[in-house]
C-alpha cells in the first residue's frame, strides 16, 4: 500500500510536469537546430607551442597542415622527427613532411632518417601533406597536435628532446 502511494506521487509529478519537460526538450532541440550551440565558427583560431619554438602562423587545409615556427631556443638545433595527430576517433594522419629546400620525407620513415639543421633566430615552414582522417572536412573546426624531436647541434652526443604544440582551426 505504501509502495502504491509512492508510485502514485511520482506518476502524478510526471503527468503534471511532463509538458514542461517536453517544452524544454523542444526548445533545446530548436536552439541546436538553428546553430545556437555551434561556437566553432566564432571561437578564435589558435596555435600554441612552447616559447622556445614560437608558432608564428598556421593553416589547416583539406589535406595539408602548414605551420611556421620560430627558433627561439637560443642555439642551433637538429630536428630528428616531426609527428602530427589529434584526438579524433580516427586520428589525423599525414603521409608526407615537407621542410624548406624543399625536402620531402615519408613521415613513418622519419625516425633515424631526419636530421635537419635549424638555425637559431630563423623561421621554419613545416608542411604536413597528404593528410586524411581526423575530421578534415572544409568548414569544420579541428585540433591538431604536433610533436617535434630535436637535439642541440653543439652537443656531439645529440641527446634528444621532445616538444609539442597544438593548433585549433577551421579547415580551409
Amino acid at each position: 500500500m505504501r509502495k502504491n502511494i509512492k508510485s502514485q506521487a511520482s506518476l502524478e509529478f510526471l503527468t503534471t510536469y511532463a509538458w514542461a519537460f517536453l517544452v524544454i526538450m523542444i526548445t533545446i532541440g530548436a536552439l541546436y537546430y538553428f546553430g545556437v550551440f555551434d561556437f566553432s565558427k566564432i571561437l578564435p583560431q589558435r596555435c600554441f607551442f612552447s616559447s622556445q619554438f614560437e608558432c608564428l602562423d598556421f593553416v589547416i587545409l583539406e589535406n595539408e597542415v602548414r605551420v611556421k615556427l620560430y627558433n627561439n631556443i637560443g642555439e642551433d638545433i637538429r630536428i630528428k622527427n616531426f609527428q602530427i595527430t589529434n584526438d579524433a576517433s580516427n586520428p589525423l594522419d599525414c603521409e608526407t613532411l615537407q621542410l624548406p629546400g624543399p625536402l620531402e620525407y615519408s613521415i613513418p620513415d622519419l625516425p633515424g632518417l631526419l636530421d635537419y639543421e635549424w638555425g637559431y633566430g630563423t623561421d621554419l615552414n613545416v608542411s604536413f601533406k597528404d593528410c586524411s582522417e581526423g575530421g578534415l572536412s572544409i568548414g569544420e573546426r579541428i585540433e591538431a597536435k604536433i610533436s617535434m624531436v630535436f637535439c642541440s647541434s653543439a652537443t656531439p652526443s645529440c641527446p634528444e628532446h621532445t616538444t609539442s604544440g597544438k593548433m585549433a582551426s577551421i579547415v580551409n
Partner: protein
Amino acid sequence: MKSKIQFSKKSQAALEFLTTYAWAFLLILIMVGALAYLGVLSPTKLLPDRCNFGSEISCNKDKMVVNNLDDFTLNITLKNNFGSTVKITDATTIVSDITTLTCTPQVETTPGVYGDIPAAGYDWVTGNEIILSADCVGGAALIEDEKIKFDLEVSYYSQSAGAGYTKKIFGEVMTSIQ
C-alpha cells in the same frame, strides 16, 4: 462482460471530454493561427541587432547598416584585432534566407571610394577599422524594417607569414533593413 462495460465507460468519458472541450481546442487553434498571421509569433523583429566575428575581428553593431538598395546594401565597420597586419584576399557575403540576393563585397580602397578587393590583397593594419560594403543585386526589393541576416566569410593571411597561410574567418550580421 465486465471488462467490456468498463472499456465502454472509458471511451464514453473520452468522447464526452472531446465534445465538451472541442470548441476550446478550436478557439485556441484559431487564435494561434491569427497570431501567426499577424506576425506575433515571429520574434525576429524583437531580436536585437548583432554582429559577431569572434575575437579576431571586432564589429560594432552601431556601425552597421543594411539599406534596401542595390548599391551599398550592406555597410559594416570592422576592426583588426589579430594583433598583426593582415592582407584580405577575398570576401563573400551570403543571405541564406533570400537566395535571390547576390552580393559583391567591396572595401574602401581610398577614402570615400569603394572597389573590389585587390587581387594582390587589401592591407589591413592592426588596430585599424575598415568599412566592408556589399552591393546586392535584388537589394532594392528588400522590405524596410524587416530583419535580415548576412553570413560573411573573409579570407586573409598575416603579412609576416605570407599567402601560403591564407585562412578564412566567418562572421554574421543581423540587423533591420533601413
